């Protein structure tokens, strides 16, 4: 018996299903909007003072078959020594399609993100167009996750950054814990901005514990994450952001709490600190930040 993921099965569960399912079914689409705000303060930086970002993403999903996300945010970096602030617009358009596999029981997701960032400066990294595809697989028992992410970032003056970010995730403790490990391999970097390096490697570890909250005041999950190694110009496909403004990142630690305020409303609060290294002159500095988002579905 042919149990492989065939083209016909893909179509039977994917595209054709869209046409065959009753379009009028009220609950077929789920739409959510997530406004967010980030505030950060730089420590020990010679040029940077503070960071603020305000944005919103809107997502729409059709049953379990796929969906789209569009997002916009504005980032302001206040600088020292009379330097004018960096004022940046960030745009995101993302699409995803899910396929359900029987031979290897689970869900395959093909995703394509497109990012465009542009600010009021004129240096190489003040404008970028990014294309980032990702193929992921989540086992049906939700105990194993794999993805292969790729990003191509085209900056000004021919700066062309390539990123590979393979990921593995494990569901533990009957689904109450989730451990995710991701590696970032970034190449094509201008050595002048990374003290002679044309590529960087870093490693992210993220642990999430899910609670069974007895009231809305109790958090639904706690996430702790840590980054080691070095990375610059990274495209974070979880946060759906492009780190074009930062210097070389040499590590970070974050903690996040999520609350299910109601069936359709979720709050995420995150705090963390990231270490950076300026290259000219070589100096370490950090960014302490807080992030708050409110997700509402309807």
């Amino acid at each position: 018996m042919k149990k492989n993921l065939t083209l016909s099965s893909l179509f039977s569960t994917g595209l054709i299903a869209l046409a065959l399912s009753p379009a009028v079914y009220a609950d077929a689409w789920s739409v959510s909007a997530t406004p967010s705000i980030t505030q950060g303060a730089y420590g020990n930086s010679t040029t940077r003072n503070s960071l603020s970002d305000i944005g919103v993403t809107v997502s729409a999903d059709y049953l379990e078959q796929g969906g789209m996300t569009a997002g916009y945010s504005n980032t302001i970096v206040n600088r020292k020594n009379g330097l004018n602030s960096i004022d940046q617009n960030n745009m995101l358009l993302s699409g995803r399609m899910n396929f359900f596999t029987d031979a290897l029981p689970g869900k395959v997701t093909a995703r394509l993100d497109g990012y465009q960032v542009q600010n009021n400066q004129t240096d190489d990294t003040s404008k970028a167009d990014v294309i980032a595809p990702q193929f992921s697989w989540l086992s049906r028992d939700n105990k194993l996750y794999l993805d292969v992410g790729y990003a191509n970032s085209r900056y000004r003056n021919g700066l062309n950054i390539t990123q590979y970010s393979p990921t593995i995730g494990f569901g533990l403790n009957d689904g109450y814990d989730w451990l995710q490990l991701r590696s970032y391999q970034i190449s094509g970097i201008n050595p002048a901005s990374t003290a002679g390096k044309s590529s960087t490697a870093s490693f992210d570890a993220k642990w999430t514990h899910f609670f069974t909250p007895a009231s809305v005041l109790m958090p639904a999950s706690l996430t702790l994450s840590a980054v080691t190694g070095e990375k610059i110009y990274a495209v974070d496909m979880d946060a759906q952001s492009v780190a074009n403004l930062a210097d070389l990142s040499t590590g970070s630690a974050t903690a996040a709490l999520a609350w299910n305020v109601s069936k359709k409303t979720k709050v995420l609060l995150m705090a963390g600190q990231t270490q950076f290294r300026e290259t000219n002159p070589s100096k370490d500095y950090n960014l302490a930040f807080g992030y708050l988002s409110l997700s509402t579905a309807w």
Partner: protein
Amino acid sequence: MNRIKHVFLSRSVALLLTLSPLMVQAEDNSAWSNSYQLEAAGQYDQAITALDSIKLNGADAELRNLRRGWLYYLLGSYNESIREYRYANERNAKSVDARLGIVLPLLAQQRWREAEMYANLALELSPNNYTALLRATLAQEGLGDWEKMEKSAEQMTVTYPTDVSAFVYLARAKARLNKKSEALAAYRAVLVRFPGHLEATAYLEKP
């Protein structure tokens, strides 16, 4: 002599023409019979193959799709099962069987929202249908939509007051919604219908 031979041949041909639909029917029935026997033996793959002689656009085409959908589901080939049930639904848009059938592979693939949708579509055709209510409740449990699950399970307990499963799902939903006293009452109702029920006993011992 030739005339007699001609008459005999003509009658033979006529007889054959009369019998042929019965022969075909007998052949098809043997295909169904073989398929049922192979299913009973757990040979789902061969039970599907046994249906190959059933005409794709014949009188039994819809039943062929429904049966193949069921057998593919048993085989764990959920995408093929979904495809067959969709074909059956295309042939007969009023088929509760097709809408209920497709819910099974969707639940197996944890496509909770799609499963709930098809269970609700079955309920549109057949309100209060037990299987549709049960499968909608299962999908809602998978989604973690405890409010909807509570509502569906309540509807089951009203319509099918002797059913144990209805009260188990109602109790689970109440427990997840932190309605402890109502969860306790529902689990007690489970124990009345199924004395010694493990889940109900465990909850009542440690709510």
